[in-house]
């Protein structure tokens, strides 16, 4: 199997997973291990008057109980908004908030003991609507400083008012994204153990071992050097495991208190309460366009329902505006985003953090503009394309840009022109574009150290060992570093052993979020691999008395480029090099550029070394009588700069499209205001993610516009392709039946209601029938 960059590879660790050998966190068991459970609030908002755990503690098999008082130090992933305690101290802020935790000899005993903890609550009014919460004098989060206003950002670039005033048309729209959750198949799990010398080890299904390490030290008031965090193989994360959670802090505390290993596995219900999923957003957009289809200005107002804690919310608030300024030139742009505390599970980062919702809004706005102007929606997007090696209106530096190539690819592959012209009523095709960051230039806590680092060591047996801080959460970061080592040192993938995400053994990496890893850990790994290649080729060159540039490392051989018959096995080359240089080891690290962002306050947030681009075309069939939308086919082209490993990139594109399709048609993370703020159905039976039978055929195309900032030109692929899925489907539904769905999800009742509303307007004569000149794919009158 070819191991080099750009080939197809068997993913590192894939066989262990396929054969059921991978040991996830919950598969780990230690001698004497206790099981922990967390008591959760049945109230959406309540003062905790007292907690009496004496009956639980008196039970045989119960070792310890901890409450909020054992965790006086607040934490939070963003250092400026530390507004959580591991367990509630004074108040419960949503249904499911953690009140007390206990450790017992087994799970059944722990569950029974929980029911014996007596908590006296004084219920408070539950504030479940962001506008109501903003207006209320009752402050939800005890650490909040501005009542229920969590964050407000207002940024303006150019004179939006003037640009909208002189635009030929102003498209106005109001959009609502209900919010969705990650639904990773592996529930969160953590195991903690204290060694006799006092070292605390925490195994966790986290995607940010380094941040967990830091926050454990902060909350437990222990030096970080006394804590080790290990991330075992993980069963999906998607942003839902990218900050510390109550379970990690509780098992660590309970292990310290009892002196025994303690494990906690969330129930599926608890995963829904931990949430940190996509924020509900109400978005009001005004988009000015000229008669020839150019965007002259965009004015956006966004109200963000944050839930009870801030999580990454400060960043979300910025991202809701900052990440929108490509792939189109906006002319002028203003965004006004407000994030609010409510008594709901906290929202946070989900794949496409902060920008999937506004991307839906702007791409539907552009479709409305194209309809208004009688322009082909692809052509309208082409006319506004930003181009490469430029700056966005909010001053982000764009390097490579393959957006036009992406548009051309999906236009051709989908048969766009023909389908636009011919698809009958009831069937339609829609387009959308998007962009995303390849990591952020500024880390979550300000520092000037590298964001990623690796150490690579070559072994005289012909193996390479890579110590990487990066969290492989299924996206394939272990494979990316292995492929880079193979490419530079001529090894096969099975010759490379990657050890990652262990804070004792591996260098610091900030974690798997913001699509940062391929670019950042890739660059770090490339630096180390190049240094080793230099040592090896120099030693070989010396033996052969040729210039080092003549030595090629490939196919487990060192070969003389000019006389290929002269070649030695790579093991021999490594021996020569190790004899000359000593242990063959090199490190590489990656620091982000500091000259690619805006000069204004907040201008660093959303600035990335490089940006990916995507274009989606979706084809749908809509049943006019039932409102059901069938996703017939999706074509998606994604500019990832350079595909380090093709199958992995295609997998990310397909997975993103699948996830976006679920969010468009099925998923809604709802809290029931009529029943005291309970979750509408915290289970995978009631929170419906698409099954394989609900997944459309997807054609994923890789477009490569190499970027100077990325290793071999590589940019991100894991999140960008989600964004345009949703508006492409919305726009296809419009093409099919002539109704705009500005509220997500597009479930059958909503689609049917929109059809009925259009029919009413057709009857009263204010609208002409949609596609009246074409045949119909669905009975035109129908309905009840």
């Amino acid at each position: 199997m070819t191991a080099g960059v750009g080939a197809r590879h068997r993913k590192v660790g894939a066989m262990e997973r396929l054969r059921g050998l991978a040991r996830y966190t919950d598969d780990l068991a230690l001698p004497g291990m206790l099981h922990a459970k967390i008591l959760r609030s049945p109230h959406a908002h309540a003062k905790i008057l007292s907690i009496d755990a004496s009956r639980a503690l008196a039970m045989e098999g119960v070792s310890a109980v901890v409450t909020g008082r054992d965790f006086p130090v607040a934490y939070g992933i963003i250092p400026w908004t530390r507004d959580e305690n591991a367990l509630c101290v004074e108040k419960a802020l949503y249904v499911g908030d953690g009140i007390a935790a206990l450790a017992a000899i087994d799970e059944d005993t722990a569950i029974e003991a929980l029911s014996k903890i007596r908590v006296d609550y004084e219920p408070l009014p539950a504030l479940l609507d962001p506008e109501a919460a903003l207006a209320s004098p009752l402050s939800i989060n005890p650490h909040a400083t501005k009542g229920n206003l969590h964050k407000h950002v207002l940024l303006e670039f150019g004179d939006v008012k003037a640009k909208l005033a002189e635009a030929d048309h102003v498209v106005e729209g109001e959009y609502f994204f209900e919010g969705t959750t990650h639904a990773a198949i592996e529930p969160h799990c953590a195991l903690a153990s204290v060694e006799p010398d006092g070292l605390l080890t925490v195994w966790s299904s986290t995607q940010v071992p380094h941040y967990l390490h830091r926050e454990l030290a902060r909350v437990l008031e222990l030096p970080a050097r006394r804590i080790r965090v290990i991330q075992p193989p993980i069963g999906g994360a998607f942003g839902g495991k990218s900050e510390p959670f109550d379970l990690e802090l509780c098992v660590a505390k309970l292990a310290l208190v009892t002196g025994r290993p303690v494990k906690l596995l969330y129930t599926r219900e608890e995963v829904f309460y931990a949430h940190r999923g996509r924020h509900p957003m109400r978005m009001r957009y005004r988009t000015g366009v000229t008669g020839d289809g150019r965007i002259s200005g965009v004015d956006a107002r966004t109200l963000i329902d944050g839930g009870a804690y801030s999580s990454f919310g400060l960043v979300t608030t910025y991202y809701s505006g900052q990440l929108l300024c490509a792939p189109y030139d906006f002319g002028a742009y203003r965004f006004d985003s407000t994030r609010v505390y409510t008594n709901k599970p906290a929202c946070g980062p989900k794949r496409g953090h902060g920008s999937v919702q506004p991307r839906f809004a702007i791409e539907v706005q552009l479709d409305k503009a194209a309809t208004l102007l009688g322009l082909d929606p692809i052509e309208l997007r082409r006319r506004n394309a930003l181009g490469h090696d430029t700056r966005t209106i909010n001053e982000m530096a764009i390097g490579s840009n393959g957006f036009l190539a992406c548009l051309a690819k999906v236009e051709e592959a989908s048969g766009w022109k023909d389908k636009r012209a011919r698809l009958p009523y009831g069937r339609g095709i829609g387009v959308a574009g998007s962009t995303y960051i390849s990591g952020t230039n500024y880390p979550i806590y300000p520092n000037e150290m590298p964001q990623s680092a690796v150490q690579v060591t070559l072994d005289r047996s012909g193996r390479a060992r890579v110590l990487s801080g990066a969290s492989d959460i299924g996206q394939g970061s272990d494979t990316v570093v292995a492929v880079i080592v193979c490419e530079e040192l001529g090894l096969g993938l099975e010759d490379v052993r990657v050890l990652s995400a262990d804070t004792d053994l591996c260098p610091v990496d900030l974690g798997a979020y913001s699509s940062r890893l391929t670019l950042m850990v890739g660059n770090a790994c490339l630096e180390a691999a190049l240094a080793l290649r230099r040592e090896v080729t120099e030693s070989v060159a010396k033996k052969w008395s040729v210039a080092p540039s003549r030595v090629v490392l490939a196919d487990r051989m060192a070969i003389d480029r000019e006389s290929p018959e002269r070649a030695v096995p790579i093991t021999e080359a490594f021996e020569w090099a190790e004899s000359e240089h000593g242990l063959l080891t090199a490190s590489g690290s990656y620091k982000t550029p500091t000259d690619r962002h805006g000069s204004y306050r907040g201008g660093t947030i959303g600035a990335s070394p490089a940006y990916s681009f995507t274009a989606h075309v979706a084809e749908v069939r809509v049943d006019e009588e039932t409102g059901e939308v069938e996703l017939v086919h999706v074509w998606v082209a994604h500019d990832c700069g350079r595909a380090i490993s093709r199958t992995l990139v295609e997998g990310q594109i397909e997975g993103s499209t699948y996830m976006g399709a679920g969010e468009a048609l099925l998923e809604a993370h709802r809290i029931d205001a009529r029943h005291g703020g309970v979750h509408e159905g915290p289970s995978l039976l009631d929170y419906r993610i698409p099954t394989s039978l609900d997944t459309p055929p997807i054609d994923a195309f890789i477009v490569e516009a190499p970027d100077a900032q990325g290793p071999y030109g590589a940019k991100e692929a894991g999140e960008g392709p989600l964004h345009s899925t949703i508006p492409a489907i919305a726009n296809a539904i419009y093409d099919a039946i002539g109704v705009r769905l500005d509220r997500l999800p597009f479930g059958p009742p909503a689609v049917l209601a929109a059809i009925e509303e259009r029919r009413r307007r057709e009857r009263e004569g204010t609208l002409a029938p949609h596609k009246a000149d074409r045949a119909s794919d669905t009975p035109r009158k129908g309905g009840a």
Partner: protein
Amino acid sequence: MLRLPRFALEVPETVGQALAALSTSEARLLAGGTDLLPNLKHRLETPSTLVSLHRLAALRGIALDEGARVLRLGTGVTLATIAHDATVKVHAPSLAEAAASVASPQIRRTATLGGNVHLDTRCRYVNQTALWRSAIGGCLKSGGTVCHVVEGGQNCVAALSSDTVPVLVALDAELVLASLVDGSEQRRTVPFARYFRSDGLRHTERARGEIATEVRVPLATGPRRATYVKWRPRATIDFPLVSIALRFDLDGEHDEAVVTDARVVVGVLGSRPRVVSTAAAMGLRMRDETLPERVAEAVWRECKPLENVPYEAPYRRTLLRVLTRRAVARLARVGAVGAT
């Protein structure tokens, strides 16, 4: 994870032993367990003993009784077998269709016909965890005193969610129940049409000590067209949110064939299936263009879904009409579908 409560497990090998085990304590029958075990994990009930029907070979037969003109199906037959069995497909194709639409392949290979017939009624306010239910103060079916579906309601309206029940009612099937009377095994037979009650807390006529042993489906006496329609948000896994079983008996297999008898049975309303009036269909030609809408109209008029399962009730009522009309039109068009 969610854990099962503790219980004793009895594993009898004959119906008699099972009946004896059932009579001794607060025992609960365990067939495939695909419904019961999740409900136990949610602590919807906590029986001290489960009596497993797993080893009752006597409940696992499928027999065509030509003499009695009846298809006999053991209650222990799995739904996967019902879905694929050649005899069932020929003589009760709509039942095979319904069985094939239950949940997922894994569940159908474990779940049984008897279990599906006795599937507990479902409600969005009931099929949740203990913590969730405590947060809303419970309900009539789960330790509370109010109904969250019908304001002020004193009667539990949890939804009949079995896929096979509407079909069995539509086919005039009967259920055989075994019990111990003074130590000796007795059998009684109840038509499915009279087996269900308008009470989500106890929605069948099964007495505590009884075990359902056999489902008897009478064979069609002439040409018949029957089908089962189920609506759910996804193509698999989900319980039905709308369900309709249809059966039309005809006076012949020709274009002018006339409906001589018909059944239309709707599920997922309250806790019992609703048999819809079919007077509008009688005597009409199967191919009469007005037939689909007449039947759909009757369904729409007589069935009012409740907010007891997800998706808005008015929407599901609209679906009942549309899906019924389409199903009847399909049966009229394709003579082969459901014909015996």
